[in-house]
């Protein structure tokens, strides 16, 4: 009986929490598309663009005024039968490469594209340097057979004298 009450309370709390979560997302408007394909293209395109105002959110996830406008625009352009590439070009013409989460490869974005490779090369260099350093230090400690024998002799003779 107690267990059932406890469960009921948990379920109720969960339902309340779910109610809040739908409220949090209700600000993003719902668009009706007659065509299922258009709906899918809209969903993927609005994930692909960055909101110019909030910068760390996609058009799909942002609640900013400009993101709303741009979602509306993407919907309109889709209905005007523009291709995905044409829609991308339309937005880039107005907002620059910045709106693309997947920026094109050109001189102004070289640094962006090459920086991971540069960081990788630097990392490998550091590892290489550290390894050669360890190896060179190890060489300092190598002793040849004769030296080793001398060392043993020295210690054993020392031990004898201690007796």
């Amino acid at each position, binding site marked *: 009986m107690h267990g059932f009450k406890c469960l009921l309370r948990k379920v109720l709390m969960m339902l309340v929490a779910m109610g809040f979560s739908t409220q949090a997302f209700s600000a993003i408007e719902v668009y009706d598309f007659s065509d299922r394909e258009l709906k899918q293209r809209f969903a993927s395109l609005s994930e692909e663009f960055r909101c110019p*105002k909030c910068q760390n959110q996609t058009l799909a996830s942002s609640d900013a005024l400009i993101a709303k406008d741009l979602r509306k625009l993407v919907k309109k352009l889709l209905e005007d039968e523009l291709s995905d590439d044409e829609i991308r070009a339309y937005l*880039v013409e*107005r907002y620059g490469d*910045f709106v693309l989460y997947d920026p094109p490869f050109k001189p102004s974005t070289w640094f962006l594209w090459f920086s991971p490779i540069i960081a990788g090369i630097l990392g490998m260099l550091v590892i290489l340097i550290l390894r050669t350093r360890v190896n060179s230090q190890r060489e300092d400690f190598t002793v040849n057979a004769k030296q080793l024998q001398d060392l043993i002799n020295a210690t054993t003779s020392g031990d004898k004298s201690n007796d």
Partner: protein
Amino acid sequence: MSQIIKRRWFALPVLLILAIGGFLYKGLGQDPSYLPSTLLGKQWPSFAAESLYDPKVTITKDHFLGEPALVNVWATWCPTCKAEHEFLKQVSQQDQVSIFGINYHDDREAALRWLEELGDPYKHSVYDPDGVLGIDLGVVGAPETYLIDSKGTIIAKHIGELNARNWLPLREQLLALREGAN
């Protein structure tokens, strides 16, 4: 010998740290929300929109042409617009420059009340309630101010509040445009 080599390797991380530090230090002074306009040096997009004062009057790009001018994107919901409003009035009088207003994503009545109460520095006011013209301009928010030449080429764009300090470089450009025309 090995001492020298060791010292040389020691310089590498120091240089690296200096380079990264320099790069990050340069970033400190920059505004991360600043987006370069794609329209600089290009033509102001052609448009036809309602006048803020009268829905029956249509304002087009031609209204903006003829002399170097400023175009200011503003809204009553934008506190920074209120902050710069007084300065815009001052600029329009002191520098004898035409300022065109684009009322962005706003309510017509609220906008008209605002202009009546605070004064109207704009030669023409365009009503853009859905931000349609804003998208063609790459407007991200309000306020934004553009400097255009007499033929409608966009010379400069300022994002955010226009004040005595950041007006100076724009003013230089405006004066250069006037000189070039004479």
